[in-house]
């Protein structure tokens, strides 16, 4: 039997890149301290913050809410609430909203649900009826827009999203592969956005936790999550990059952490070089997203569905 490096109890995980195994208790403690460290080092949460957690009901957003509530739930100066977007995906979203509601009830956290239908007049199913292949693009763009808008309206100072280490390094690679330095330099635990009142600062507390470990923590600590696959998910660049990085990690343990550490080391230099060269992070005047054109893709898309 494989046993915990610290206490000798039965292990639940063996991390190849560190050559050690851990039991449920010590694994959970470590994950929590890692998340706390990210929050502290990157100053993700400050005094008097009102944090909106973007809660889909999936493992990562559920864990984000669970941990922020665990760390800050008793702090009188910090408020936490959850926001779920109902895109209107039949046979998929209803169930996850139920799970999200249940978690909020259990934790005693205020929960809001907003929908594409109410906001845009159409469900995602209706919007993409004739262009199913583009569903993820539409969905991602519209969800992001709505999360920012609604969290701001509810008075949030931070918008916490569930991005884990795997999500983040996939984004690094995707932007690299697309040659999109504009977006590449805007990744991170707290992407520096233009300080404009209209934009709620996004934070990623789970950014240094591998996907496998966010899943394991939820399983071990009884956090019930929605596990179905979105009916629109399909092979994409992200899908290929995910497979590639998993293959590399399996063959060369530690790869994932190397990628993120390398990125974090390189980023300040990249940002500086980019600015020195006269490059500007061009921002869409309407929404603040990075763009290479006058009006960004999001705003174009919003215009296009109004008809």
């Amino acid at each position, binding site marked *: *039997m*494989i046993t915990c490096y610290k206490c000798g109890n*039965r*292990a*639940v*995980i*063996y991390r190849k890149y560190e050559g050690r*195994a851990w039991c449920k208790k010590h694994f959970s403690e470590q994950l929590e301290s890692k998340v706390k460290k990210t929050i502290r080092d990157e100053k993700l949460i400050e005094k008097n913050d009102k944090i909106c957690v973007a809660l*889909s*009901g*999936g*493992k*990562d*957003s559920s864990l984000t809410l669970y941990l922020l509530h665990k760390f800050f739930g008793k702090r009188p100066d910090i408020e936490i609430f959850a926001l779920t977007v109902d895109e209107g995906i039949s046979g998929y979203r209803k169930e996850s909203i139920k799970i999200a509601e249940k978690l909020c009830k259990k934790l005693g956290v205020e929960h809001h649900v907003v929908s594409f239908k109410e906001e845009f007049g159409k469900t995602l199913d209706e919007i993409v009826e004739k262009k199913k292949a583009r569903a993820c693009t539409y*969905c*991602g763009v519209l*969800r992001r827009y709505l999360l920012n808008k609604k969290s701001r309206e509810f008075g949030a100072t931070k918008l916490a999203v*569930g991005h884990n280490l*795997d*999500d983040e390094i996939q984004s690094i690679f995707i932007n690299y592969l697309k040659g999109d330095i504009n977006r590449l330099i805007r990744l991170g635990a707290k992407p520096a956005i233009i300080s404009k009142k209209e934009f709620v600062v996004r934070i990623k507390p789970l950014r240094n936790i*591998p*996907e*496998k470990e966010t*899943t*394991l923590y939820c*399983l*071990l600590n009884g956090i019930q*999550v*929605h*596990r*179905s*696959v*979105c009916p629109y*998910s399909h092979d994409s660049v992200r899908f290929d990059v*995910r*497979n590639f990085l*998993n*293959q590399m*990690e*399996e063959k060369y343990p530690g790869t994932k952490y190397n990628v993120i550490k390398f990125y974090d080391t390189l980023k300040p230099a990249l940002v500086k070089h980019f600015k020195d060269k006269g490059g500007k992070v061009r921002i869409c005047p309407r929404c603040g997203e990075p763009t290479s054109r006058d009006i960004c893709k999001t705003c174009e898309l919003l215009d296009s569905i109004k008809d």
Partner: protein
Amino acid sequence: MQIKLKFSNGKSKVFHVKKDSTIEDLLKEIGVNIETVIVKMNGKIVPEVEKLEDNCTLELIEFVSSG
């Protein structure tokens, strides 16, 4: 040794492995990347480097990226 493998979709299949094989050995053989699953052996979550027990039931918990 004989191993019963249960998949996320409820189906199961019996495999025969050499003595002292680990969970990881079996996963490699069937082409499952250890980065994409959590494994339960006889109902308990275990590290993939654990040795397989004869006549055990393995359960693969796959996870999906959640947006």
